[in-house]
């Protein structure tokens, strides 16, 4: 591990000033960054520890029912917050489907947003990776790429973003509050992560030193609370990143879909909002035929980046299931195995 400076600022302003220097990285729980530092995939010269910054570990509610979640709120605290679970159940379910209790007790929301890809070629410093070393090439492109991207990838990079909670958040129009050297600003979460294009090292829209201080969920996002699910396909029953995941929410007017929310995880370098599918859904009857059309629309642009064509069909089926589960209603109790097909609510349809 390289020698690095460690700074523990007392205020956000100090933190931002320190992190604006080249070679800096923010450190929160470190559940991802420290692993990368151990392998050498990340070699920051300066760690700016933000865990002591005041006021970033709170959840505040607006009078209209929106939530402002501090960037240092722990995954566990967020997932088990009763009000969050009531208003934004798919956020809680997504959080609980990720990592392990120990990790969730440490990991923060801001860190979750900024976690790096799990692409093995990104982790392995002996491999060529444009994301880690611009211009080096992409060894994943012709490598072991069964689980890589099917949407929005480029020849330069086929990595995916591994977050679960980002998928639910992006479906719910979450907004990211940012403070930086040039003041405060906010952007939709959907605009935070960038597709690789020809510059996969430009992973986010954050400028040097910019610090995520909070994520806001607008009150309107609670409209789908009674019909919202997060569903995740993984290669063991727990403690695995998504092969493909989906957050689905429906706001129903009788049997007609008034408003739909749909996003996919594990398919692209960013949490993938499926707006084309939402257009298909909105105003249509909430039934299997509509869901199938939505799934087609969501994957219309998909193409395999390697040995992963199966993920396209898998994503289609997952969308249909997630929408069906959402239609069946948000479970009153969180499922024993959150987001798992093995914990389907009784009576939910499974199409053979």
């Amino acid at each position, binding site marked *: 591990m390289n020698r690095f400076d460690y700074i523990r600022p007392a205020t956000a302003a100090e933190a931002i000033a320190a992190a604006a220097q080249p070679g800096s990285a923010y450190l929160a729980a470190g559940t991802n960054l420290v692993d990368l530092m151990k392998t050498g995939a990340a070699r920051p010269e300066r760690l700016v520890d933000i865990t002591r910054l005041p006021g970033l570990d709170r959840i505040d509610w607006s009078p209209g029912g929106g939530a402002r979640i501090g960037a240092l709120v722990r995954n566990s605290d967020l997932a088990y917050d009763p009000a969050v679970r009531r208003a934004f159940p798919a956020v809680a379910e997504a959080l609980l489907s990720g990592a392990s209790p120990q990790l969730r007790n440490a990991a923060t929301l801001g860190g979750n947003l900024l976690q790096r890809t799990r692409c093995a070629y990104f982790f392995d410093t002996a491999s060529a990776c444009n994301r880690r070393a611009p211009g080096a090439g992409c060894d994943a492109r012709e490598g072991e790429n069964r689980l890589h991207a099917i949407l929005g990838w480029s020849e330069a990079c086929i990595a995916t973003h591994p977050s679960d909670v980002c998928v639910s958040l992006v479906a719910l129009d979450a907004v990211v509050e940012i403070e930086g050297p040039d003041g405060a600003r906010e952007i939709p979460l959907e605009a935070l992560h960038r597709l690789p294009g020809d510059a996969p090292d430009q992973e986010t829209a954050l400028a040097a030193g910019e610090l995520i201080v909070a994520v806001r969920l607008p009150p309107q996002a609670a409209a789908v609370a009674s019909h919202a699910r997060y569903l995740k396909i993984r290669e063991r029953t727990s403690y695995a990143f998504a092969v493909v995941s989906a957050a689905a929410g429906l706001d129903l007017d009788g049997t007609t879909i008034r408003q739909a929310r749909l996003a996919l995880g594990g398919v692209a370098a960013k949490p993938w909002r499926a707006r084309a599918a939402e257009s298909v859904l909105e105003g249509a009857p909430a039934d299997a035929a509509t869901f199938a059309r939505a799934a087609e629309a969501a994957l219309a642009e998909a193409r395999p980046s390697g040995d992963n064509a199966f993920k396209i069909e898998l994503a289609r089926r997952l969308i249909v299931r997630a929408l069906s589960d959402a239609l069946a209603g948000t479970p009153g109790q969180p499922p024993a195995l959150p987001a798992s097909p093995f914990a389907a609510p009784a009576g939910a349809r*499974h199409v053979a």
Partner: protein
Amino acid sequence: MSLETASPLAPYPRHGSNAGQPITRRDGELKVTGQATYAADNHPEGLLYAVCAVSSIARGRVTHLDVAAAMAHPGVVEVLTPANRPPLALDPNVKHGPFGFRLEVLQDDTVRYANQPIALVAAESLEAAVEGAALLNPRYEAQPARTGLEDGQRYAPAGVGVGAPPRTAHGDVEAGFAAAARIVEADFETPAQFHNAMEPHAVVAQWDGDRLTLDMPNQALVMSREAYGAFFGVPGANVLIRSPFLGGGFGSKAILNGPQLLGILAARHLKRPVKLVLSRAQMYGPVGHRGRTWQTLRLGLDGQGRLTALRHRSLAATSSFDDFLEPAANASLHAYASPAILSETEGLRLDIGTPGPMRAPGEASGSAALEAAMDEAAEACGMDPLDFRLANYAETEPGTGRPYSSKALRECYAEGARAFGWAGRPLRPRQMRDADGLLVGWGVGSALFPCPHFPAEARATLRADGTALVETAGVDMGQGAWTVLAQIAAEALGLDPARVEFRSGVSDLPDAGVAGGSGHTASAGLALHNAGQNVIARLTELAAADPASPLFGAGNVGVTARDGRLHRRDDDSRSESYAEILARAGQPLITASGRMARDEEAVQSWAMYSHGAVFAEVKVDPDFGMVRATRLVGAFAAGRIVNPRLVRSQYYGGMIWGAGFALHEAALADRRTGRIMNADLAEYRVPVNADVPSLEAILVPEEDRYVNPLGVKGVGEIGITGTVGAIANAVWHATGVRVRRFPIHIEDLMGG
């Protein structure tokens, strides 16, 4: 969980017996309070930290290392490379000793696999050593890596596994196939798997002149002491290995490896204690693994569903420079009755680290294929898979015709089937669904493991106060040796285990042999048993010869040892405590030795195996192909059970491993570079709790008068065998899809 004693009363008089009781681990409190010290917990004064730099290519030569940059890093003390590596007393390119492997100890600049040590950096801190290794920035002259069937070099091996023949034939398989009413043939593929013990390979080495102390996890203490001594030109007696606890071994800690040798070498060279701990990623190369196999099963069947011939061929991967081959094909030699059986293994040389024995070597991967093929054969015959296995039940050992020393496999089938609820299973696949619409399937597999024994010695000392000390260099890698071996010794001494002090886990104690092959309890246990009995015999002599003893003259009728007293066999009321006998004789203690001993004629005359049957239920999401092994029931017969709690734990562990083999575990090597791309516990998947929600292990009573005087067989590895096939067969029963490449992936089951 029920903790009844499953074994019948032992076939020998065991008055005052505590064996058979489910007592908890004697080391449990140390472990749950964090006081059990593992090798890397030792920090002697003046300690240096050593880190291996490892190759990122799989084949070629190291042409440059930036030693100057590493040496310039603050805290770095020394960089060892092939250019300055001090000499060893043995050539690491030669195989030495019974479990000898060719090792990579910086003997030259060639690279034979990814993750091979290419330099060692020693520093005042771990961080400095790690960064020093990173600063070496190696340059290579790389040659194309040979990573698969396409570019590997096939060869005819001299042996497979640990000294087994590469070809074994019983009867005429071609005649058997010619006579068959139908033939079933299927190809199977098993991946490279890594032991992934929780505790990485580690060593803390300290030299004092020509004496060496090693804190290291080690499965074969006395044998290793000799081997390490030989590499450094000192007698084995000069080497003290302390290995009180291992965080798992699974076969990977019985064999010398390059990194640990380098750590010891650095300690001698630098005249300071050195600690070396492999990173998780560095465990994927120099410390063995279960090699890949490509297997073909061919089964000839008569009109009644009985085997007419069984042929098991395997192509097994090994390294370019050594010869351990997973003996998968041999798993078919002893399993089922067939007039003709042929097992054949071919080798495939790849640019990989040499494979080695990994929990149930050969039996795990071979029984996976065999049990799946048997299921296909049952389907072809239109028979229930359990009935089919019973139709091919081996009443005597296939091939040799030897009788079994004991074989309660029929009872295992019956008990397991009853507990599982096998009756009424639909013959056809894709017939069952649960309330949520998930596909449900049931499968069965037979489990089998031989009963190897290893030479072992022990010492028992009865003290003046009536307590005892028993000693053997045993190995507790989590299986419970601290507890079980003490139970056996206490029983032999007629003492409560609480009155027996057990010393183990250090190489200057009597040799307890290898903790491997599921033979440690039997082997070391027999030595302890005999040592204890020898002590009691001498105590009896003292008492019987003493006119003042109530046992005077009891030499002929004999005595029984119970609760710290000797009793006349013909008059239980006449007894005397051990302490009284010793006190009157003026003896402060009695010491005696014992060794593992079996009736060699019985060993030759009888076929000896542990047996079992594993029943699996899986649920499969019909759209997604996700599989969960929702119920596993294993029924095992392994002779006398010394501690049902710990034995159950071994079966659970084996069955969970089997679930991982079937559904999760695989090392993913990049086809171009040979580098393992998932060398961590996030992406190299082993089962988590949610993957094995219901697990039941049934201890089927079995009495064995021939396997050894204790009647004990092995339980450490059999749980994997049978389980893999049972799960694969259940997946077929759920989905109608035969997946013959492990692990089973979701896309294998997504259908059209």
